């Protein structure tokens, strides 16, 4: 039998699912008044939570929502087609537009702008760095690249979190 008292985690597990409690825990509980009292507190709490009345909206939710619903067909934007109902993976699928299509023009613009600036002011830019030693130059380039990389990763992570929040199965 265990000599020390059961932790809160173990007590909760015992209260929620006694059949899944180990023999040494059960033996301890059978003889330890303190642990039994603490388990009793949890039992009391859980019983009380179950007894709490469920909240209800104080207005006719179904009626209010139904009065605001647009026609279903109007929801389907032009250029979208609905998959057949028999298809389990039914969802609005854009026609002629694939995920990620928009990212290419954005990347193009992002590359063109600095490229254009370098073309126009390349000599001046090179003049700034020409005084630097090779090692210093590489350190600058590496630092800038790493900062950009980490920032890009952070932006991507935030984007993914937003997308996950919108995941509708």
């Amino acid at each position, binding site marked *: 039998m265990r000599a020390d008292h059961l932790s809160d985690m173990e007590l909760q597990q015992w209260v929620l699912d006694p059949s899944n409690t180990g023999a040494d825990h059960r033996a301890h509980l059978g003889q330890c008044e303190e642990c039994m009292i603490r388990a009793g*507190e949890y039992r009391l709490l*859980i019983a009380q939570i179950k007894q709490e009345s469920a909240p209800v909206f104080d207005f006719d939710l179904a009626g209010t929502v139904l009065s605001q619903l647009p026609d279903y067909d109007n929801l389907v934007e032009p250029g979208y087609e609905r998959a057949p109902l028999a298809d389990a993976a039914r*969802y609005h699928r854009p026609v002629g537009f694939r995920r990620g299509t928009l990212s290419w023009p954005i990347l193009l613009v992002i590359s063109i702008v600095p490229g254009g600036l370098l073309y126009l002011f390349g000599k001046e830019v090179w003049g700034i760095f020409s005084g630097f030693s090779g090692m210093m130059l590489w350190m600058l380039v590496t630092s800038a690249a790493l900062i950009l990389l980490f920032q890009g990763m952070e932006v991507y992570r935030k984007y993914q979190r937003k997308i996950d929040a919108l995941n509708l199965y």
Partner: protein
Amino acid sequence: MSKPTGNNQTDKHLVERVLNGDRDAFGMIVCQTEGLVAQIVFKMVSQTEDRKDIAQDVYLKAYQGLARFRFSAKLSTWIGQIAYNTCLSYLERKKLVLPGDGQEGEEPEETSRAFSGGAFPGVSHDNVTESTLYQRELSAILRTALQELSPIYRTLITLYHQEELSYEEIRQITGLPEGTVKNYLFRARRALKDHLMDTYKKEGL
């Protein structure tokens, strides 16, 4: 409390009717799931005046996204997920207390040790409920304790103990890993129990 829909065939039938333009079928979906949505909205959003808008928003989103529902979960779970995410966006927008903030980083402490002499020394559990802590008082203390929890903890406690959802269903609704759900539930129960016992000690109920 109206229990949400659980039958996949019923879900499919209802969704099919809605997609074919039957609005009454959507009304049935609302009626069947509003209990769960109310639990989530009431536990996540304290501002009474905002709850109505959020509840309507949840169902409008569900209606608009119904064609994308793929039946990989129960319809009620899916609507619960929309309700949860809508409330979460609301909390983020309002910069209100976010899930588990404050309590998340806390190390589990054996706070109940403060009562290790026994919160009710020498008194059995049955005696406590019957003669000392009156039901109404206990309920009021619990409600206060629940209000002091973070919205996520409150919601998890409700979904698990009142709505009797499984860890998997709660995971689907909240998007939290199952381990995190269990951990948050453990912390929430311990905080509630500590609050309950603390109040008992202070007020000498």
